[in-house]
């Protein structure tokens, strides 16, 4: 599903990712941990090709960082759900519209859009606020809208950057359970987080740790087999 082949990403200021190779299979659940600035966000950006590696190759759902042209990026993006560290919702639109937009863009039948978006928003606990412009939502509420949007298109891979950074324990549990459930149905998940508590709680997930751009730990070691338990 996701494969990094000796990937390096250099910024003007230095390498954010250095010589990382990894392989994430269909339906795997991976926690990406590491200190602030270790390269978690950069790794996720490389996966959905909003950054291209300066060296090496990234392959995701059949798309290669070497061959995919900017014109074709949308095809990849429809297979990848994104939750950003800074939410990135469309301003001036309601929670509903933000989720609906992702569905529309990916060509859902117009009739199915509203009920589906509504269902997702209920699942993240925002049913009552679905008609609220996102500017009028609290930080945690926005984050949940972002999660609902990412899940809306039933992606093959979910990339989530600190999706629980603004959530309290209850909301975190709700969101995690939802993602865990969908993951069980076959969606791969890569979640960047520094909440070690969370990592410990979902102990059956695979854990990768980055340090200064290098992959320093991978719980599945040499053996890449997936053990998924609910």
């Amino acid at each position: 599903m996701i494969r990094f082949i000796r990937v390096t990403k250099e910024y003007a200021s230095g390498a954010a990712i250095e010589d990382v190779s990894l392989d994430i299979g269909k339906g795997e659940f991976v926690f990406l941990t590491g200190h602030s600035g270790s390269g978690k966000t950069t790794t996720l950006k490389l996966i959905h090709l909003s950054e291209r590696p300066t060296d090496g190759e990234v392959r995701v759902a059949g798309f290669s960082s070497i061959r995919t042209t900017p014109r074709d990026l949308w095809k990849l993006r429809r297979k990848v759900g994104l939750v950003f560290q800074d939410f990135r919702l469309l301003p001036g639109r309601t929670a509903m519209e933000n989720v609906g937009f992702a569905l529309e863009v990916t060509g859902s039948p117009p009739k199915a859009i509203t009920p589906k978006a509504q269902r997702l928003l209920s699942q993240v606990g925002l049913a009552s606020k679905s008609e609220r412009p996102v500017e009028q939502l609290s930080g945690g509420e926005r984050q949940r809208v972002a999660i609902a949007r990412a899940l809306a298109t039933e992606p093959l891979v979910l990339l989530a950057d600190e999706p629980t950074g603004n959530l309290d324990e209850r909301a975190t549990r709700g969101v995690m359970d939802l993602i865990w459930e969908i993951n069980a149905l076959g969606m791969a998940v890569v979640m960047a987080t520094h909440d070690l508590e969370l990592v410990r709680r979902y102990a059956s997930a695979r854990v990768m740790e980055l340090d200064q751009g290098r992959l320093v730990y991978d719980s599945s070691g040499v053996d890449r087999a997936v053990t998924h338990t609910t």
Partner: protein
Amino acid sequence: MQSPTLREALAALRRAPLLTGLSAGMVALALFVAGLFGTVTHNLQVALQSVEDRVAVVAYLDDGAGPAPIDRAVADLEARDDVREVRYVSQDRALEIARAELPELAELGAGLAENPFPASLEIVLQDGGADPDAIAVVAQAAAAIPIVEDVQYGQEWVDRLHALRRLTGVAVMVIGAAFAVVGALIIGTAIRIAIFARRDEIYIMRLVGAKDAFIRRPFLLEGAFTGVVGGAAATGLTWLTYQTLHRFLEDLSWIPSTWVVGGIAAGGFFGMLASAVAVRRHLREV
């Protein structure tokens, strides 16, 4: 849900009415300038036409020519395709005109033993006849009539008019082109700024998996809308200016309505085009 394109365009209007309004206003102003220029050009054309209409070949007649041969000469000349009208000017009338036009001649008059002005035929050519060659043909035809003593056709005037036509032609083209470029740049700029203000949004749309065409379409619609609204507003402004000027300059005439319709349509088309260019460029940059 309505069409996504229409909805997105409306959403943009709803979310940033100021921005859309300002863009439309800017387009209106640019097109207003074009409208004023159009009014000036149109009136220049009208004025030139009316001067051209006065271009005539004058055939001076023998002092002794009788009414019958004169009538025949008039009829012969009027039968020609390239002649619109032939006017007979008697000796007395010629003196009168001369007196009115040259103050010095007012002194003349009864004091003269004999009217020194000959009678003449003023031959007005068909539209577009100000071409020196066409005039020469008519002049030759007139000279061939026996009672015609001499033919004059204001060589100097014809040449001057021709020069004026060329000149205004060039001026209209140069200034018109300048205005068109200005208008184009203003519309393009307004839309680039509108897009600039929404760059985050475009970026997010791409991340969510929207095709470029999907992102582009609402902007095109918005551009066309802005152009049409701007064009209509420009027409209103031009009309107001025209009305104000008309009070003082009664000769001023309103531009042909085809120009108005064409202008508004061009505004819409142009707004769309400018949007297309701006979005395309922006999408390439992100």
